[in-house]
């Protein structure tokens, strides 16, 4: 929206992973538009607070609707939009701090409800906008501005967390591969249920993990990233657990359960039993 807006003064640092995620989301929304014929305004991007949330202002080309609210609350806002207007495509974008720390309490309930949205988490393992504090995914022992002698608690494992909480679609991607990432996001959008797309999106200023992700043969660094083998059965939860417990950062679809109905489907089914009464009829029940 803000490509030609001189008033908007926010910038990502050169090389920030979020550029790639933005590109992937633009690709995904265009793909969707071409596939469904629905206008761009049918998409609603609900953004968190932090570097990642600014994505909603930095999208180029045709503009979707956006919601840039308060820290940590992307999921319940997205639920409000989706359950109010089920025909809309609702996409959440948030960082690891927003989504997993202050917003962590909302993941379990939405997974249990199987809310039909797609959440893209941009994980850089640090609080960037507040200048380099430790986040849930910062590695144990890492020195940051808020952990001057090293991070004290163990790092979160988001993929395992989503699996345990019952997300019905879990994909893992890398910001350096926007085309591939777009495909994962499109599949998350198409999934009838709660879809998590967790993206490694390095922070070049405070936590540059490009080399770790991609490896460096000269320095003898093995890449953490690897493509999920074709034989992986994403419908098998046990196999998904095995995958996320291995060392390294898998890229692709880890888990997909298409058997569970979405929140909307359950609501439609359950509430069909309810008698529909007008206000006048409801008042009759209090008349004497």
């Amino acid at each position, binding site marked *: *929206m*803000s490509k030609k*807006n001189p*008033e*908007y*003064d*926010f910038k990502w640092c050169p090389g920030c992973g979020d550029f790639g995620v933005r590109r992937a989301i633009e690709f995904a929304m265009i793909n969707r538009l071409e596939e469904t014929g629905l*206008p*761009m*305004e*049918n998409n*609603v991007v*609900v953004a968190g607070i932090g570097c990642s949330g*600014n994505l*909603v*202002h930095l999208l180029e080309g045709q*503009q*979707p*609707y*956006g*919601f*840039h*609210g*308060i820290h940590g*609350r992307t999921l*319940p*806002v*997205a*639920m*409000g*939009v*989706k*359950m*109010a*207007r089920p*025909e*809309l495509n609702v996409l959440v974008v948030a960082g690891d701090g927003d989504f997993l720390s202050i917003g962590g*309490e*909302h993941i379990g*309930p939405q997974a249990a409800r199987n809310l039909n949205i797609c959440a893209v988490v941009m994980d850089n393992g640090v609080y960037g906008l507040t200048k380099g504090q430790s986040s849930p995914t910062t590695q144990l022992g890492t020195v940051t501005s808020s952990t001057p002698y090293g991070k004290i608690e163990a790092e979160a494992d988001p993929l395992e967390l989503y699996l345990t909480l019952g997300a019905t679609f879990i994909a893992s991607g890398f910001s350096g591969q926007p085309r591939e990432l777009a495909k994962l996001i499109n599949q998350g959008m198409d999934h009838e249920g709660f879809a998590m797309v967790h993206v490694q999106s390095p922070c070049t200023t405070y936590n540059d993990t490009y080399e770790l992700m991609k490896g460096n043969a000269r320095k003898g660094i093995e890449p953490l990233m690897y493509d999920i083998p074709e034989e992986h059965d994403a419908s098998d939860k046990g196999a998904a657990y095995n995958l996320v417990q291995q060392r390294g950062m898998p890229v692709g679809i880890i888990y997909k359960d298409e058997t569970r109905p979405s929140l909307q489907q359950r*609501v439609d089914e359950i*509430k069909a039993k*309810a*008698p*529909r*009464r007008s*206000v*006048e009829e*409801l*008042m009759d029940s*209090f*008349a*004497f």
Partner: protein
Amino acid sequence: MQMRDFVVRFAGEGGQGVVTSAEGLAQASTQVGYHALTYATFPSQILGGPTWTQARISVDPILSAGDDVDVLVAFNREAYDTHREDVREGGLVIYNSNDFDLEGDDRSYGLPVDELARSTGNNRAANMVIMGALAHLVNMPQAYLEQFVEARFRRGRANDDEIIDSNNLALKLGRDESASSGFSLGDLTPPAMPEYPQIMLKGNEAICLGALAAGLDFYVGYPISPATTILVFMERNLVGEGKFAYQVSSEIESITTILGAGYAGKKAMTATAGPGFSLMSEGLGLGWMAEIPLVVVDVQRGGPATGLPTKTEQSDLLACMYPAHGDVKLPVIAVGTVEECFFGAVKALNWAERYQGPVILMTEMALAERVQNIHRPDLSKVQPERRLVYDGSNGYNRYQGYELSPMPLPGSPGAYVANGSEHDEMGDTTHLPSRHIQMTERRFSKLKLLEENEYEADNADEAVVMMPWGGSKGPALEAYNQLREQNVPVGWYYTMLLSPLPPALLEELKQKELVIVPELNYQGQFSGILRSQGVNAVSITQYTGLPFKVRDLVERITEMTNSHPKEMVRA
């Protein structure tokens, strides 16, 4: 002796039929044309615990639960010990002699409630035994009660007759037993059935009906006393095409979920009590900032923190008037009667749509759980409002200008970012001083759309006036009526529109020597707000967890008018 008014308190253990007895008496009375009001207080536990409910039956419309208890029905000894002192001189105690024995109280008699009920073959008829006994005391015709039994139990079942006969027998046994005690209180004046249609319901139910009448689409909530009954009602009844009601996992989810729904174009609401309201603070600020219509109902209980979950208080006013950090001022409506619960909810939803932002609707425990007969609201007079919706093409600036502008809805042209950061006209984040000035002024300007001169004024030429707010209206009005009968020179003002206050009302109040504000909190919250607006207001405060007694208000106001103006120093 003729009685126009009759107050019964039922006290015992939760589960002993305390509430159903009171509500049964109230229903039986309203069916023949009396007015009725119940006031209930519960223990904060699932089963058992001391509990009591008061029912007031009157020939005239009722304003308060009644200061003086004519009859105490004590289900156990503890209830007798606790409540005996509230029985007026000349009043009576009926105690359940199957539960305990009582000696040395010559204004009491035992009623073998359980035994009499059992003898009808219907153990569940115990309430009817008590109602029969009460009917004798005020010489209420048995036919009134039998009419109630017929209405309640005629449900087209095979054993209807059997059930009705056993209940009528229970009424008779209770009445005969009461008659044999030799006690009587007088003759309750025969009722005059109001000529308008009536409904009988609780304050929270009236809020639900009002919200539905105003076109509510979307409700989410989290269980919390005393707001839970609104969630329960909505889950059951807010159904159908485009409607949604759901229990979410916290009050933070409640507010942020309705923010999403309001943004997406729906009329959205949640209800909570003080602790939940505190959790909604940041979300309310976002609603103000991003300009999203929604309604939050605060059913006040005693506070702070967990406070008194099942007692009444009016101590959330400052929290509602100053609900969030930053430059925020949300509209606040506070209802004072069950009827106002209905119309206040309509107004709250309309205001939210009209000015495109959050509205706070305040009520309180004593109203939420009160059962009262009211004039059935005429739905043809309810005019739901709808926000100004943008229906042009793309390229629109949602936050343009210094005043309200049409709101685009997702799915249609006019895409923008609803932004909780300070933003420019397109909704993009900005830090320019000129923008913060424009947007701040824009947000505050919209409140002007809500200025309405809707208020009550009586004897408005008096220099000293009363102006209660919220649920203290009833006891205050009853006190006012008594004061005027005693020729005490005091006037009356009342509005449920606390912010923005009706401008004409504020002007009138500023001219008064003294504005007396009865309110259930320690700080005198509303009088402080009035003083900040240039009104010489003082509070009569009470912080017992219970509503005002009319007698106390009459005494205090009489004193204040006597000492005024010579001892009063203008603030």
